[in-house]
């Protein structure tokens, strides 16, 4: 029994089956990007144990195909098992061993990156200084206590709590929040029919209508999430607010002689340093609209580490600083606003190591083949 299990786990057949499934999965995941967009397709096919199929309007999730985690995981086990089981200390096997060790590291690195890395963006106008970057998809609902003249106290509620009918009670807040409704993507408009009472009773939202929109799938589109939230104090409801990432301003309210502000925004990551955009340049080839280069000249200030310098970030030349990397990712139409991609990935080194190992392993292995082939040919 045990032996047959070991055999199954160490067999090359399992490798081939897994690789075959991987091909189908990658193919499906690529085609699906047309409809789902790169991000959703990635989650549906690769960052999951199973690919689920949900029949329309049924709310079921039927696993129909192994996902990236499952295939990768089995390959991973297969790889380790086979090498432990059939390990031989022979010179002839150096190449094979090295390259598989590299694959092992590559798979491990992929997992680590998925767990540990965060991506966010920093959008700065010329002359503006920022000390935070913003997440692309994660959002937060913030309640700011602005009563104290010197210090704002911010309570951030992450997006996993922002689902309809959720009741949020935070130790730092003297009231609770009832999520009335939440739209992952929405379009806001002006309310046309004023006769019908709006659910929203406070703030800018009173004059606005919100409709749910399909999730954004294209590379340059972004979701506009909207939340309708009721604030309930000890004495009863304070009213219902509409917050959306489309609304740039915070909304004010008072409770128990304290002033508060509420806002829904992209999740922020604060840094112990600040970046000021001095100049953004977008060069084109003469007489064409083909972009030649994008670059951002920034001023980096970190008072703690006594750093105060200018940096030029451009295509294929990012700024690496304090474990984060800043890439020139885009710009806004006015040509005076830069968009920097901020990546924090502690395991960035693994693919480099893994790749050199696999590459070297392949070269060793195939040169041995070639050598043997040449010898046979001569013989």
């Amino acid at each position, binding site marked *: 029994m045990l032996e047959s299990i070991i055999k199954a786990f160490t067999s090359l057949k399992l490798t081939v089956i897994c690789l075959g499934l991987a091909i189908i999965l990658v193919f499906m995941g690529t085609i699906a990007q047309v409809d789902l967009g790169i991000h959703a397709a990635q989650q549906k096919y690769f960052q999951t144990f199973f690919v689920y199929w949900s029949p329309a309007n049924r709310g079921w999730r039927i696993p129909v195909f192994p996902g990236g985690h499952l295939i990768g995981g089995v390959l991973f086990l297969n790889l380790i098992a086979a090498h432990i089981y059939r390990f031989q200390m022979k010179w002839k096997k150096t190449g094979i061993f090295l390259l598989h060790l590299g694959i092992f590291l590559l798979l491990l690195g992929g997992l680590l990156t998925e767990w540990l890395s965060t991506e966010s963006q920093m959008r700065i106008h010329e002359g503006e200084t920022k000390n935070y970057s913003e997440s692309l998809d994660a959002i937060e609902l913030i309640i700011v206590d602005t009563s104290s003249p010197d210090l704002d106290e911010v309570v951030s509620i992450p997006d996993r709590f922002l689902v309809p009918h959720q009741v949020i009670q935070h130790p730092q807040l003297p009231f609770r929040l009832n999520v009335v409704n939440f739209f992952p993507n929405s379009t806001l408009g002006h309310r046309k029919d004023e006769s019908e009472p709006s659910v929203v009773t406070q703030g800018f939202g009173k004059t606005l209508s919100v409709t749910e929109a399909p999730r954004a799938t294209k590379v340059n589109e972004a979701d506009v999430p909207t939340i309708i939230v009721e604030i309930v104090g000890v004495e009863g409801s304070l009213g219902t607010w509409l917050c959306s990432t489309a609304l740039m301003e915070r909304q004010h309210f008072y409770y128990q002689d304290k002033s508060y502000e509420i806002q829904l925004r992209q999740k922020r990551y604060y840094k112990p340093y600040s970046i000021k955009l001095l100049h953004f340049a977008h060069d084109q080839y003469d007489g064409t609209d083909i972009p030649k280069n994008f670059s951002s000249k920034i001023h980096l200030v970190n008072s703690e580490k006594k750093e105060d310098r200018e940096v030029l970030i451009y295509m294929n030349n990012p700024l690496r600083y304090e474990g984060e990397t800043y890439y020139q990712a885009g710009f806004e139409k006015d040509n005076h606003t830069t968009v920097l991609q901020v990546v924090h990935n502690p395991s960035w080194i693994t693919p480099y190591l893994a790749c050199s190992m696999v590459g070297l392993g*392949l070269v060793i292995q195939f040169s041995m083949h070639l050598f043997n082939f040449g010898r046979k040919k001569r013989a």
Partner: protein
Amino acid sequence: MVLMVCVLFLLPDLRGPKDEDFFSRHEFGELPVLVGGRLKPFDTVARNSLMIIHGKQTLRKNGKSISAIEWLMNVMMRPEVAKDDELFVINHSDVLGMMGWKKSQKKYFSWSELEPHLDEILRQAKLADAVDSQVRSPFQREIVKLQERLELYHRLKNSLRVEEDVDFVKEIALFEKTLMPGAKAFLAKKKGLPFEQKNLELWEEFNNRYQFLAEVAYVFPIPPENGQPLSSWTSIGHNLLEAVTQKPISPMVKEYAAMVSAYRNVAPVEFDQHLSEAMRIIHSQFPDTVFRARYECRFNHFEPFYKCMTLYVLVFVLICFAWLGSSASLHRSAYMVLFLAFLVHTAGLVTRMYLQGRPPVTNLYSSAIFIGWGVVLLGLILEKIYKDGIGGVTASILGFITLLIAHHLSGDGDTMEMLRAVLDTNFWLATHVVCITLGYASTFLAGFLALMYIFRGMLTRSLDKQNAQSLARMVYGIVCFATLFSFVGTILGGIWADQSWGRFWGWDPKENGALLIVLWNAIILHARWGGMIKQKGLMVMAVFGNIVTSFSWFGVNMLGVGLHSYGFIDKAFFWLSTFVVSQLLLMMIGALPDRYWRSFAKPKR
């Protein structure tokens, strides 16, 4: 013998073209100009423009073939002659119907035929422009294309001068005379002093005229003043506009004006004088640019890749004959011709690299050229080792097909276009892109070698045990090679992505395509090592490699998502599907049991 004939076939075109009438047209074609951000000779501009508008590099007119440069010179200098050239291709019946025409024998239409419909075409194109390019209807795509072609034609026409029946030399003389009094009148009016109305009107008219010329011109033929960067060439309109602000008119403008007048007055001697003077002016400042432009003209005229296609066909025919008659001398000559074709192919490739100052692969067109080159190189090596013609035949077929694909990819304009900002790095182009493309080339070669196995085994009795084994060894070896290059290439791509976008792997379609090739080759190797497949299984799987590679090369570009996509290719989709279906059929045939194979079936007693 055969080799001699081939060399003779190549030689005459090495010397450059000759002009049939009195104008030195091809020398005019050598003048360097800035178009699309790259300095190139007029000849290239002419060929590319005619390719975009007409789909060919020459034009048939009254049963005679006229060269691209002659056509362009007519468009720029004698539009009244060029306007009747039937060159705008319209295939779609709705587009024809819009203009009240029926779909008939006629495919090409002239500017004068289309001119009355310009407003409607423009209106329709604007409507279509609002629709995302991937979801446009065939009519909308066709109309947008037609509008783009018409616009290009219009811009070419107004590149050297405003299209009108006036003598350009006299026009500029009058302009120069108007400059001072006009500027005075303008200033006087501003200060509220008395001024000559006529002078001001004329001056303003010129101003508007050259404003238009500067905006519309497609070609930038005026070199910068000494000391300015090489790329800042300007249009004639721009230079004339600058004259309004008291800058001197460039001598080049005057030379061009004189050439236009001479060409219009059919004065070849005068034309040649001003042409050589223009050449002298540019040469004195930018000798290197002139050299490159001349070299590029030679390259255009020699058309190395067309020559290669002919030679590949010849190699194919020679080896087939050698097999039929089992002639060793034919075989040897086929090998020599393949080698010659490879040399020409290499020369073409290297010339492109020199002209562009880039590694070999920068766009889809050049990837096709490079895949062909890689395959032929590998085929030559196989031929050198095995000497059985298999490598040669496969290489010649693939060389021909990839160059044919390249030819069909060249219709979008300059195949040496400038690189978008992300791609502007020679290091990664030289490493990642070259490795990946070699991976494509070798996977295709393995797939086509497998096809040879299937064809030979199925249709002939010639695939004996030894032949079959040597073919299997070839396929196996090439698959190993393909695995190495596609893996290393994919990984280098990951590293590039990590360097420039901050992620090693993003599941972008092009990345996935490359990964599919690596995975598939890995499956073949593991299945073989595990004894799961034998010779025939190896062959069938290698054929599937063709499908995987073509998906990665073209298929993912048709998805139109991700950072890597270079645009949708309409017709290519049809050909890709046809290719995939054909490969699937061949795989099925390859999987038939031994008794259906002529080579393997046991003889009946």
